[in-house]
């Protein structure tokens, strides 16, 4: 069972958290009433498409049974190591390739 570092609460057991998903996908700005094809496409990608990388993955988690904040972690989906964790509105640090 993973230990997940919540930026607000510190390392807590996995069963306090809910996995939300890919942190790199971004919901396009849909505020314009006339919807362009590009926006439609971008929105559809946001709703339906997910990368499934082997290795490092930037993802959102919610500390559901804790502070309830969403935050980003970078986790290796092969061995479940977590190398960074930041608040939802912060950028994950960049790492050299292959680390």
């Amino acid at each position, binding site marked *: 069972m993973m230990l997940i570092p919540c930026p607000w609460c510190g390392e807590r057991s996995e069963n306090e958290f*809910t996995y939300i998903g890919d942190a790199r996908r971004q919901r396009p700005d849909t505020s314009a*009433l006339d919807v362009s094809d590009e926006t439609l496409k971008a929105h559809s990608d946001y*709703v339906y498409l997910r990368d499934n990388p082997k290795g490092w993955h930037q993802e959102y988690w919610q500390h559901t049974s804790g502070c309830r904040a969403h935050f980003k972690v970078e986790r290796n989906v092969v061995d479940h*190591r977590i190398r960074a964790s930041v608040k939802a509105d912060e950028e994950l640090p960049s790492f050299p390739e292959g680390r």
Partner: protein
Amino acid sequence: MTSFRLDQGGLIDRNAPLNFHFDGKAYSGFQGDTLASALLANGVQLMGRSFKYHRPRGVYGSGSEEPNALMTVGKGQEQESNLRATMIDLYEGLEAKSQNAWPSLKTDVMAVNSLMSAFLPAGFYYKIFLGSANFWLLPEYFIRRAAGLGRPNELANEDDFQHHFTHCDVLVVGAGLSGVAAALSAARSGASVTLVDEHDKLGGQGLWRESSQREWLHEALAELADYPKVRLMSRTTAWGHYDDNMVACVQIEGDPGAPLPPHQPRARAWHIRAKRVIYATGAIERPLVFANNDRPGVMLAHAGAAFAGKFGVLVGKSLVVATNNDDGYHSARILADAGASVQLLDARVEVSEALQDSLKGSNIELSLGQTVLSAKGGTGGVTAAEIGGLDGRSSRMVNCDGVLSSGGWSPSIHLHSHTGGKAEWREDLQAFVPGKRLQEGVAVGAAAGIFSTQEALNSGWQQGICAAQDLGHSISAGQAPTLGSPSLDTTPILPLWSNPKPKKVKGKAFVDFQNDAGASDVVMANQEGYRSVEHLKRYTTLGMGTDQGKTANINGHALLAQAQGRAIAEVGTTTFRPPFTPLTLGAFGGPHVGEAFAPVRRTPMHALHEASGASFVEAGMWKRAEWYSRDGEDMWASIKREALHVRRAVAMCDVSTLGKIDVQGPDAQEFIQRLYCNGMKTLAIGKVRYGLMLRDDGFVFDDGTVARLDENHYYMTTTTANAAAVLAHMEYHLDVVWPELKVRVASITDQWAGMAVAGPRSRDLLQAALPHVDMSNHGLPFMGFLDTELAGLPIRVLRISFSGELAYEVHTPARFGPQVWQALSETGKDFDLMPYGTEALGALRIEKGHVAGGELDGRTTPADMGLGKMVAKKKDFIGRLGLLREGLSREDRPRLVGVIPADGRSRIIAGSQLTEEGQVGGFGKVTKSLGWISSAHFSVEHDCFVALGFVESGALRQGQTLFAASPLDDQHLPVNIVSPHMIDPQGERQNG
């Protein structure tokens, strides 16, 4: 019966005799025995029947690797099956039964399976499905009865089980020499240490193999026990290693039926989070594979030595011990020293002199270049063995009463493997050892392939210090102790996977005893194309079962490699998955059984409902009043009475379970606008509005109401079922999608009680209860709300209706819920007020055509539910782009309709499919479904069952007759499609 018990030796207490029964017969053993050692001491060798062929089997190992001696232990509710006799500690009054045999272990009529073995080849279950369609049913019928393990206990277990959570610097798994060394050096360095071992005593084989080892173990364990930060746990199996060094263990306080110390549970499940894990899990001996190597009386060489050394039981007087490695010599020596005459067969032609010298002065006759080719015997045990060279020629029979073999040792790398660690083949050891690791776990001693005693101890000592130093503990632990006995000059192991089978000998050479998989099955599987170890496992079942191939895997995989002419390293090994050994399910359930299985949520007015005769239904974790029985009524009578009372007078329903969310902040209005698909901008302070929430893909997510309390303050309700999901949905959009919006949300579901007061007389009642408030249509119009007081208690009255009648909801802080309910009930006496439950609530909303859970199933759009006009055109909201998709706006999508039975009386079954044909199903017949029934109930207004459903081109079908088909209930009911608003379509009642 001869006693096989030695006069002295072993870790048993000969002054503490214990009585027990096996298959109804009385025996006795000693404190310190296992069930297996006690049976052997009484001369009982036949302990089980094999899974598939029902071959007679004896005990094969002496520990948790045991494949054969599976038994049912205990009585009544405590009885448990498939327990390994080698792991059950004997206790006074123990009752054990054999399994998988009828009428008795000795005369098992199912043994006919053994004669039929030619018809039960490898992959039998796969092949049978290739036959004609129904052929497999016949053998399946018999196999189900004949094959199998013990029967599960159908009684509820009343024992106490507990869950424990702890953490430590260093967790050491396995308390043999290397494990104790690791624990001691880590503890001396200053680390907090937990040491677990699956056996009843800590210390491992060192306790009985040599006195110098025993003495050191006693001293070391005594020193460890004195450290305040050290926890020692015996009878504790570390069964799974999970992420971030979470090791799951089960600690057995007493085997099934064993007396427990006061206030102790039967077992504890431990979750141990360790900074470092040291695997001192040892190794498991594997047998040699030869014909009839499964006869009772044939066992692992180490097992024979352990029974002698640990339990003072000599498994035979005249033994054949066959080996291909040095350790067979140790085992032979222990057996000879205990009094057996031993013929030691070493398949190797040359061995070191030191090794040969180690036999000096013992009753052991050593033959080099020889091995065992076949065992002879039956249910009564072994009578002879055929031995000879590896070429299979020049064989001869020797009389003996036991055949023991050692085919080498396989390190227990299971925990390392659980975490994704790789297995690495060591040619010199002919064994897999831990390779690349992904967790902070390291193997020591035999688990790491280090088999010499002193080196194993050194490796434990070193790793204990390393782990502690890594964690910043720097006290010097001193030097590793020297336990004398310098390691012998070793002679490399001779790879030997299957011995030649002598001519004229019938009978299989088994690799996996529990699954009756033989060497020939491995060869056949390979021939038939099952070339990967994982396929081999599924096809032959080799490595499955309660022992998961602990003694079988390496032999099986090596035979597969041999058949393919490949190296074992290339073929690899199957993945080990938790649990390491079978575990009692009670430990997983722990205390979470019965009432403690899940939390129960009760509304503030729960006790009042109980007093009013309510029956409760579980809705999520909530207990909701379903209906209120009055004298002599049956369920339907109560429901109809309550529903009719709402339509004709006034009734009150507890709606506290609705999700409630408080929304505040300068951008609250903008957020609410984006959250709902209908317009919310014009919602004025003091007004409440129905709201429909979509997911981003355009489908309806939830519905509820929004009351605007203030400029920047909203009070939302959600459905009971979606309360948590809606909150998370809002939090996600605020945290991630629109962090610029200044809004905070909080769940206030538990903080507020709510009650619906519905019916034509509801206004009169509330006016009487609240004389200081103008309750007229002018004072509180439809979709308005006001905050006031009732009997000095703060309340919020919202004029909203779910039933379609003139109705209100009264909300109040949870702690005032009962008083407000009682105050309204008191005033209600003059208005003949009665409570109504969720059944009547459901019946009323279906009549009215209001959607709820059955309709909000995640596949429906607002237009599907006839709410298309609500969707705002001039704002952005979640789901707007999703709704633009072609498939979501097609006119022929299934749309909401009302459904009534054509005969005016039959009951419509929710979940029925709507079709044009009267009969559906039947062999090879396809009937098109036009839609489905989403919810159904009894309508008091129409005095018959009615339903809501979705049907293609819904509105156009009004007036048509279709069929509601529920093949499972054998019902094909003619139904009329009508408007979903089956009462008061203009809404005059609720608006008036």
